[in-house]
């Protein structure tokens, strides 16, 4: 199964007008965290918050809805959120922490919970993990470079970035520039080349724009905790639903992209294995399902 295990797959978006305005797509990560915080399901969250530098996120512990909203929107660069987990539990004293993670971080989180070496009494305090879809991620300097080189825009003028319809979009105040996503290849961090996970398969709830129309997110509810929180949010009207399109621009596209990410990564894993390089995955010959995320 290329999309991992899930209980439910649907289109969803936050009903909060404010969140709709500032968020990347359906505002699910922001909306769910705000809802969970209000309902005291979590007492704070580790998010990619703003830093001193535009577009450079900084792992932040958000203790209020305002702080969660300040972190809304995708930043296409690295935010080492796992790095903040310990501080969130220790200095901030969170006992039920929420967290937003990209697939690699989700894997790290689950590993941390399974083998809490060096994180005793920390990993068990993560109450809700919202995973986001990720095709690849760029170091900050890479992002800066290809935006100024490919889009020809001064980095400081960028208002929003997005990936969709096979293109990388850069929005400035009076312009909308795009270039083929293919042209960003080579700029991503090298770990992304062996990543077998597009949809945060191990998260409680994963969300992303692939397979969803504009301003909606495709959401997969995966765990019992995820289901409880998600259903509560839907019942309370914080989130509205729409069935996902099974066809070419919906589920089919999500499946296809996930499969192609896995196939590409598997090829690279096998190549690196052959060279004797260390790769934290099994070679395709070593596992039953060559596309399994192990």
């Amino acid at each position, binding site marked *: 199964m290329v999309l991992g295990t899930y209980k439910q797959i649907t289109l969803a978006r936050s009903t909060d007008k404010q969140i709709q305005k500032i968020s990347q797509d359906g505002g699910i990560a922001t909306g769910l965290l705000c809802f969970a915080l209000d309902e005291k399901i979590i007492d704070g969250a580790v998010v990619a918050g703003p830093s001193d530098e535009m577009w450079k996120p900084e792992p932040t512990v958000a203790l209020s809805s305002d702080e969660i909203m300040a972190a809304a929107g995708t930043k296409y660069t690295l935010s080492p959120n796992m790095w903040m987990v310990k*501080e969130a539990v*220790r*200095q*901030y004293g*969170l006992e039920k922490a929420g967290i937003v993670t990209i697939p690699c971080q989700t894997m790290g989180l689950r590993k941390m919970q399974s083998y809490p070496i060096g994180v005793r009494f920390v990993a068990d305090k993560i109450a809700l993990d919202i995973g986001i879809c990720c095709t690849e991620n760029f170091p900050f300097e890479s992002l800066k470079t290809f935006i100024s080189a490919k889009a020809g825009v001064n980095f400081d003028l960028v208002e929003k970035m997005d990936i969709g319809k096979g293109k990388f979009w850069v929005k400035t105040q009076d312009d909308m520039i795009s270039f083929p996503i293919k042209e960003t290849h080579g700029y991503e961090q090298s770990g992304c080349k062996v990543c077998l996970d597009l949809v945060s398969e191990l998260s409680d709830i994963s969300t992303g724009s692939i397979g969803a129309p504009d301003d909606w997110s495709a959401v997969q509810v995966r765990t019992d905790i995820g289901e409880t929180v998600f259903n509560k949010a839907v019942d309370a009207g914080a989130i509205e639903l729409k069935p996902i399109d099974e066809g070419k621009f919906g589920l089919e596209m999500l499946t296809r992209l996930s499969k192609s990410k896995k196939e590409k990564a598997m090829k690279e894993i096998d190549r690196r294995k052959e060279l004797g390089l260390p790769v934290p995955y099994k070679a395709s010959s070593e596992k039953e399902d060559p596309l399994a995320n192990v």
Partner: protein
Amino acid sequence: MSEKIVISPTSRQEGHAELVMEVDDEGIVTKGRYFSITPVRGLEKIVTGKSPETAPVITQRICGVCPIPHTLASVEAMDDSLDIEIPKAARQLRELLLAAHDVNSHAIHQFLIAQDIVPADLMVTAINSVSEIRKNAQYVVDMVGGEGIHPSDVRIGGMAKNISEVARKRLYARLKALQPKLDAHVELIIGLVADKGFPEGLGVHNQKPLATDVLYGDRTKFELDRFTEILPESWYDDPEIGKRACSTIPLYDGRSVEVGPRARMEVFQGFKDKGVVAQHVARALEMKTALSKAIDILAELDTSAPVMADYDIRGTNKLGVGAIEGPRGMDIHMAQVKDAKTQFYSCLVPTTWNIPTMGPATEGFHHDFGPHVIRAYDPCLSCATHVIVVDDEDRSIIKNEMVRI
């Protein structure tokens, strides 16, 4: 006819030690000698020549039972050597950390002596009570120190981070809720010790107490020129023991002293009782003092205040002293920093002070009580070891000038 009773190693304590008692025909101890047989660690040598920040990180590994006092003594020694005045909030956090650790560490000891004093029908109650207290005290250590066992956030110049307002309120509420439980626990322990019916005068000795503060420690109260350190060979009148003992004998005013909760209470709170029962009672009572201090600090702490001072790491080779009152007694670390490197490092740790006092304290009673006397001092040997064996064949130790290994 005198006979020798040897207990090796003595049990339910940290590290390895040996108790050798000479007894008369009735089995009464006429001469008690207690000495450490824990192999040398050499941590002070490891940190010498390295950057000052290394010292707290390495020396806290002296022991996993009381890493907090070692970390604090180490940073205090470095602060002193580098002439750093730490911010008020940092000092409060350090005091809070130690107070919480005291509660936890004393509870561990009560767990260790449970077999001696708790009757079978109360065992579950007593152990649950210990666990409950430890859980809450460690929660404070986790949050303030950054790590439960070897705290990462205690730094030269202050603390790495202040705690958040949420954490402060949470800790305050938790410790407030712990207070009635701790009161009941202390009452339980004191009652159990009384019910055990130790003979009157057991473990009483004539050595003076040495303590620098009610709880935290004060380097100005420790006068270096009154302190001397001698080799075990010249202390123990049995040459065999003198050779095998792994720790030096520290003396204050030329005499061995007693450190620990009872010593602190005698010096600062006019606590008069002595002996095994008094040790247990003082230790239990000190848990209350520590908890109420922790609560007071949490009530006052300004969580937005800075916790790190600016300082020059290069140093002037000043001898810095860090004196911390650990759960088992006064812990002194000394350090000299010059050219941004540690030039000299030495630890005088709690149990080292108590070792020469504990042996004679067993005298005058039946040897069956020997282990009870030793356990009453809650010895922790791994930190106390301070000399090195150079020849495994004849177990001789290294020359005098090399003692501060």
